[in-house]
């Protein structure tokens, strides 16, 4: 009996490693930007090329940066969540970053699916997205009053993600 204990023990340890390792999503790359100041940006407004949207506009507020594009099917999936949230009283502002898209497609998409954004920045060449470490839309960043990134959600923000992962953190930061 004793001679089986060591291999069995090793097997259980291996099983533990595999259980943890295989349940991780390899698409979720941890961001080195968490708890670091968000990159500075000044971009043209999606609706009005004459106006700009920049990080400094949002200083003093807790806000969300939602990276989206008209070519991104998952963005369509999460969009109703933001549409509903933006209408709730006391909602924190959501800034849209229209990433690697063209203006007409982006505007048409917002007209069709609704526009929950306090402001929409137009990042046509994708540079601001790269500075934020974006590698696929949708991605959503929670940024505090001092412009520091506090949380990042890679992928679709469902109602559950919003209520359990994002809003509790946002309330904590807003104190």
């Amino acid at each position, binding site marked *: 009996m004793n001679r089986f204990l060591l291999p069995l023990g090793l097997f259980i340890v291996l099983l533990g490693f595999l259980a943890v390792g295989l349940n991780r999503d390899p698409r979720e790359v941890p961001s*080195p930007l968490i708890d670091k100041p968000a990159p500075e940006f000044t971009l043209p407004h999606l609706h009005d090329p004459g106006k700009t949207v920049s990080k400094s506009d949002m200083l003093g507020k807790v806000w969300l940066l939602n990276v989206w594009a008209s070519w991104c099917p998952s963005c369509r999936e999460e969009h109703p969540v933001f549409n509903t949230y933006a209408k709730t009283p006391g909602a924190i502002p959501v800034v849209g970053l229209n990433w690697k898209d063209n203006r007409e497609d982006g505007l048409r998409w917002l007209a069709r699916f609704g526009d929950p954004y306090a402001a929409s920045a137009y990042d046509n060449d994708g540079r601001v997205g790269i500075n934020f470490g974006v590698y696929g839309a949708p991605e959503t960043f929670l940024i505090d009053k001092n412009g520091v990134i506090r949380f990042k959600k890679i992928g679709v923000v469902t109602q559950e993600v919003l209520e359990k992962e994002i809003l509790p953190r946002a309330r904590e930061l807003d104190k």
Partner: protein
Amino acid sequence: MKLLLAALASLCLAGGVAAREAVPLAEDPAVEERLVNIASELRCLVCQNESLAGSQAPLAQDLRREVRGLIKEGKSDVEVKDFLVSRYGDFVLYQPPVKPTTWLLWGGPFLLLIAGVATLVSYLRRRGSQVGRVELTDEEKKRAEALLKDNS
């Protein structure tokens, strides 16, 4: 007719050029060479089993554009990699850096090797001491010699 053939031939040539990999607007071969060198050690984040040099994902093309810009600005290879690591983390490097969180990763194989050698040595010692204790009786020696003779 000749004109048509020439047009077709040039189309084929153009197709051949367009199908080549990862050399968009290669105006400076030296820059492109460094780009390919650096990018082949970096992971594409969209197609994670492809290098940044080989991937045709739109993001990889954008990142190559950024790297190309940095090279033209005269940045060193280390600075270019830092640019990407500061945005995307160590994950973009195919060769992870040695630091406390990766000590096990780098040292693990050597630990396993040491454990294996230690197990082997202790096993051989135990076996050696057991084998050493076995003495043949005279009867057994005769039988063994007879068997050996039979075989020859």
